[in-house]
């Protein structure tokens, strides 16, 4: 059989194609002009990342999810209406009759479509025989190009995934790093001896993150027993541990609250009994000389009841109302309660002129503020010239704030964190339960705010309460809650 020179030249040129995108244009340019062929499009299945269809067209490779189901091209013929319809939909323009050349034996099931601008029987036959001659070489080259595309796409994807992976990853050979991602490189910069395989523990605390180190060896060699290479992976467990700690903490708080409630209720009964019996005895006792003793006993049991009461309100987990209220008013109504304690303190009060609208529960917030001021007063006990400065207004971050500063001894650095923990107290026995500050923080946090404490340079401590401001449209005046100025 005579092999035409055009076929030889075609074979040479197509073999030098290196990129799938070049393929359609090349085919298009090889077809003699007299055949009046139009666009050449290559469709194939790409299995990467579940992207199913892609096509090369006019020198560009398009990755596209095929809009329509992949028809059985093998059974289609030139002139088949479904083909034109399919191509029109996919290519976004009306398509003339096209020749369908499938390559089912190649991975990816590529199908070549060649549009015929002059759809005559003769033209069709010409084109068919053109491609029949070249089918073999096209098939081989397509296979190569598709493999290469698939491979380089996979490789690039792998590279992206590996490189960009948030957690440190490294590939080791002979225990030396041959490839690593950015996260690993960053870590290695800070910790040069990262690779020392001390088998003490696989949990590492690096910077402020906690990592668990994993090593996945790759077995090679004749019987898969040789470990030369492997993948080193540092799993970032910081968030997990933080979350776990938070959960444990809230569980602890919940159990404490439950315990508090149980104890309170258990104690209430006998206490009621004691105080009731004392009252009854007092009335009915013939011995008037014991009157004072009865009074003291009653006072003592009342003190117990008060403690139980505050324990209960601390542990209360029921829903409370959230009304619109004025934080300044809370402050105003709390100060009188501390009149005696504040009597000997030189108090400077600087409140904002207008209302400070926030959302919360009046009495709960009152209790919180009360407890913080009370704490300040107690810190000033025995201080020669005690001073307290209470300010309220709008903070830099646009929140409502109350700050309570005293010139007491301040709070030791180590205790600054613990001060809000329940039952943490440096007070004398009988002076308080150590629940006040914890309760205050809990209440304020419950309304979206925060309480913080810091030591003041001149000596003393400063408590700061922050609460989110109520926006205009949130305001719904409920009775006397919001004072209108």
């Amino acid at each position, binding site marked *: 059989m005579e092999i035409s020179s055009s076929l030889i030249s075609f074979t040479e040129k197509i073999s030098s194609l290196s990129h799938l995108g070049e393929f359609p244009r090349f085919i298009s340019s090889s077809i003699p002009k007299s055949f009046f062929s139009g666009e050449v499009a290559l469709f194939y299945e790409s299995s990467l990342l579940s992207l199913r269809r892609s096509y090369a067209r006019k020198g560009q490779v398009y990755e596209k999810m095929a809009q329509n189901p992949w028809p059985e091209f093998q059974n289609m013929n030139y002139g088949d209406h479904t083909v034109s319809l399919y191509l029109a939909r996919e290519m976004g323009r009306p398509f003339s009759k096209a020749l369908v050349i499938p390559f089912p034996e190649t991975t990816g099931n590529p199908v070549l479509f060649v549009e015929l601008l002059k759809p005559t029987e003769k033209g069709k036959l010409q084109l068919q025989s053109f491609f029949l001659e070249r089918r073999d070489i096209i098939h081989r080259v397509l296979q190569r190009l598709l493999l290469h595309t698939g491979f380089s796409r996979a490789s690039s994807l792998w590279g992206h995934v590996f490189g960009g992976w948030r957690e440190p990853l490294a590939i080791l050979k002979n225990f030396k790093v041959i490839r690593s991602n950015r996260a690993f490189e960053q870590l290695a910069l800070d910790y040069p001896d990262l690779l020392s395989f001390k088998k003490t523990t696989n949990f590492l605390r690096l910077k402020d993150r906690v990592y668990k180190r994993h090593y996945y060896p790759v077995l090679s060699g004749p019987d898969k027993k040789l470990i030369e290479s492997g993948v080193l992976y540092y799993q970032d467990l910081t968030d997990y541990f933080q979350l776990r700690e938070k959960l444990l903490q809230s569980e602890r708080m919940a159990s404490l609250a439950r315990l508090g409630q149980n104890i309170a*209720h258990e104690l*209430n*009964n*006998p*206490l*009621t*009994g*004691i*105080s*009731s*019996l004392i*009252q*009854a*005895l007092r*009335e*009915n006792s013939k011995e008037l000389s014991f009157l004072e003793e009865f009074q003291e006993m009653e006072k003592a049991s009342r003190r117990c*009841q008060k403690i139980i009461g505050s324990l209960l309100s601390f542990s209360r987990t029921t829903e409370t109302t959230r009304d619109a209220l004025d934080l300044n008013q809370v402050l105003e109504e709390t100060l009188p309660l501390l009149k005696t304690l504040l009597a000997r303190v030189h108090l400077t009060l600087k409140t904002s002129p207008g209302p400070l609208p926030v959302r919360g529960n009046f009495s709960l917030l009152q209790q919180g503020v009360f407890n913080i001021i009370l704490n300040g007063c107690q810190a000033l006990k025995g201080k020669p010239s005690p001073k307290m400065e209470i300010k309220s207004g709008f903070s830099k971050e646009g929140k409502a704030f109350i700050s309570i500063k005293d010139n007491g001894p301040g709070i030791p650095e180590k205790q600054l964190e613990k001060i809000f923990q329940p039952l943490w107290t440096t007070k004398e026995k009988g002076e308080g339960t150590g629940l006040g500050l914890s309760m205050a923080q809990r209440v304020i946090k419950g309304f979206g705010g925060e309480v913080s404490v810091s030591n003041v340079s001149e000596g003393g401590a400063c408590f700061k309460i922050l609460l989110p401001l109520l926006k205009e449209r949130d305001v719904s005046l409920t009775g006397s809650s919001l004072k209108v100025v």
Partner: protein
Amino acid sequence: MNKTLKVLVVDDEPLIRRAFLLVGKSRRHEMKEAKDGKEALAIWPLFDPDLVFLDVLLPDGNGFQILESLPKSLRFKCVVMSAHDNLEERRFKGFHLFVRKPFEDIFKVFSRGEQLIFEDISPIEKKINTISQA
């Protein structure tokens, strides 16, 4: 208060029972006590009290359940006492007054109970009368 009443106190706390008994006896009432539901149900129909002070939380059940198990023929005024603040109790009926524990003044509680008899207050259907600062 001149009339002698038959008063029953149901509470698992012995001191509370003692206190009520002391007060009641000093006012010349006929007092009886019960320490749990079982005892209460045994004594109540026989004693047929005019006034009952009933604790809600008893070792063998709920005070309200006791109210429901009584023979319907009995006539009495009932003061229910509770240490808890759950609002569930408000669902129940058959009692005339709800008192929260701990009570500040047992004499007031007792007097309010006596008042129920002499003003013939009807049982609580929906609203609750509470003495929170008794």
